[in-house]
């Protein structure tokens, strides 16, 4: 895999604000202004050969620094471990330009932000922008006691109006109340573990929230489940590949000697998109639109699999 490098950054500071979370501040080696970013953007960082996407927690307007907070994932692919154990001040890190995939909606009458655990990171970025723009914003944040990353930022940026929870049931009750009592035109933004995100989105949908007013950001907190084994028919080269559980379609294609351009390998950047000529994809990416998904004509092989016995691709 290749990480096209847009930026070389230097680590300005490393901090562990709560146990298990490292906050990293990155700057240009010569201290110049960095490219600005839309609130809710993420940065693709080269973590010792692996590329990971992390939400930016700093202000994106004419920034001199980029800040990210990284939760140590013990059983992950090693990117967070590398940041926790290897990365030190003055180290150089390769990165790509920040990418926007979770922006605030300009026409929203109110922004209701719901964060769980390390999913607070893009929410912090939204709060900074909302304050700068004078937007009406409400925030609910749940975390394990003693592990509330950016809890003080959330309180400060919301002028003390943030609602913080360390009790799951109290949080669920309050989320339900809050979702039932917002002015028309409110947009909901959810970032947290998959189970929490699904619950909040499900509650909102049941209460009649239109899908166009619900926004979620899941990557970075979720290790995708290994999935079932499936077969891929290769129509151009001929033959059939079996993609075992726990191996991505992209990796299986590469192992078979096929050249598929890729970048983030997390279903975010869109680089590895391939056409599908038969079979139904199980889409797990964040790149394809609903419309593109429904046609079944494309798949992002880095994260997506087959919904059923197999796929046919013109490779």
């Amino acid at each position, binding site marked *: 895999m290749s990480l096209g490098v847009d930026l070389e950054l230097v680590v300005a500071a490393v901090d562990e604000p709560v146990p298990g979370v490292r906050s990293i501040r990155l700057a240009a080696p010569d201290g110049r202004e960095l490219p600005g970013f*839309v609130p809710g953007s993420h940065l693709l960082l080269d973590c010792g050969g692996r590329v990971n996407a992390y939400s930016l927690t700093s202000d994106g*307007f004419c920034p001199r620094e980029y800040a990210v907070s990284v939760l140590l994932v013990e059983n992950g692919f090693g990117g967070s471990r590398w940041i926790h154990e290897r990365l030190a001040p003055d180290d150089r890190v390769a990165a790509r330009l*920040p990418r926007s995939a979770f922006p605030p909606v*300009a026409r929203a009458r109110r922004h209701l932000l719901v964060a769980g655990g390390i999913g607070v990171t893009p929410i912090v970025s939204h709060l900074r922008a909302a304050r700068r723009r004078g937007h009406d914003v409400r925030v609910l944040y749940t975390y394990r006691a003693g592990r509330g990353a950016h809890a003080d930022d959330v309180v400060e940026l919301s002028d003390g109006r943030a609602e913080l929870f360390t009790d799951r049931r109290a949080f669920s009750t309050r989320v339900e109340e809050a979702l039932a009592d917002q002015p028309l035109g409110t947009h909901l933004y959810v970032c947290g573990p998959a189970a929490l995100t699904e619950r909040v989105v499900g509650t909102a949908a049941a209460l009649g929230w239109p899908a166009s007013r619900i926004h979620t950001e899941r990557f970075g907190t979720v290790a995708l489940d290994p999935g079932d084994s499936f077969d891929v028919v290769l129509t151009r080269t001929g033959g059939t590949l079996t993609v075992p559980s726990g191996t991505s379609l992209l990796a299986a294609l590469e192992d078979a000697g096929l050249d598929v351009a890729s970048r983030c390998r997390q279903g975010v950047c869109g680089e590895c998109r391939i056409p599908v000529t038969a079979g139904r994809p199980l889409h797990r990416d964040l790149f394809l639109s609903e419309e593109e998904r429904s046609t079944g004509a494309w798949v992002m092989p880095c994260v997506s699999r087959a919904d059923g016995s197999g796929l046919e691709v013109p490779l």
Partner: protein
Amino acid sequence: MSAPESSSLLRGFPFPFTDERFRYSTNVEPAGVPVHTAAGRWGAAVVDIDGEYHRELQERARILAQDPTRHAVPTHMRTAAWDATLTLLRELAASYPADMLLTRTGINRWRWENRRLGVEADFVYGDDATLPGGPLHWVANQVQEDIVLLDARAGQLWVDAGVVTFASAWSFGFDLGMSFLEIHGPVPRIHSEGVITRAQEFIRRLQPHQPYRRTNWGVNVGRRLDVSLERYPDWAPDRARMRRADDGSFGRLLHLRVEVQHLVRLPDSGAVMFLIRTYLLSFEQLATVEPWRRRTADVLAHLPDDIAEYKGVANLRDRAVAWLRAADAPPAGPAPH
């Protein structure tokens, strides 16, 4: 027009026909890459200033004073308007460092100096009162480009703000608030061929700091930039009059009109800035560049009728092709002046 001015128009003209046949396509490419043509080059900068700078800005100011519907920034697009303004000034300062200077003087404060216009301004990002007329109206008097700002929501793009004084047979005031797909409703072929939905998906995925561009073209009678639908009664009769023009004035009056359109995802608001820079070159001048003369004649001759109709060349095309094919030597008679 003096000879040096006309040759500078030729040198910077974005001749659009890369193939012998024209069809609509999602013809986007990364911005900022210079294109070398038979007469010069274009495309090195996102924001382009040429010899028409003062003339076109005066024209824009006059149009805006007469018709306020050419400018709109609804409340939800205020952040995008500031974002666009700062982005345009940065582009100008980067491309024309000898004449354009942007200096940050505080967290949200900037000083702008445009030596070509003799303009100096101190402004506070986000504070509309610090730039006369508001940021977008003001910055439209620093660049020759028309500016359209698209909001992204509900999986679509919406034309929600802008300053457009040089529209080519459309109306900014009418289109304001419409979706990208609605606006392109009248364009033939692009819907059934999927061109326009692909274009929308492409624009939706644009990221900041990676601008793209495309060209669009049509024909124009005279050096008239404002051929908006609002002014239809003024310019439509010119086309009918072309039928009675003799060959000399036909070549002088008929212009190839080319738009270089830039697509920029703005880095603060996340809105999309769509810039339209319009270039006009008379057929008389165009015919002095042999590869352009031949290529333009071929393209016009083979243009499908529906596209010719939409582009407003249907009635003029046979004569234009014949004129170009007959003009295979430099035009006789006095040099243009």
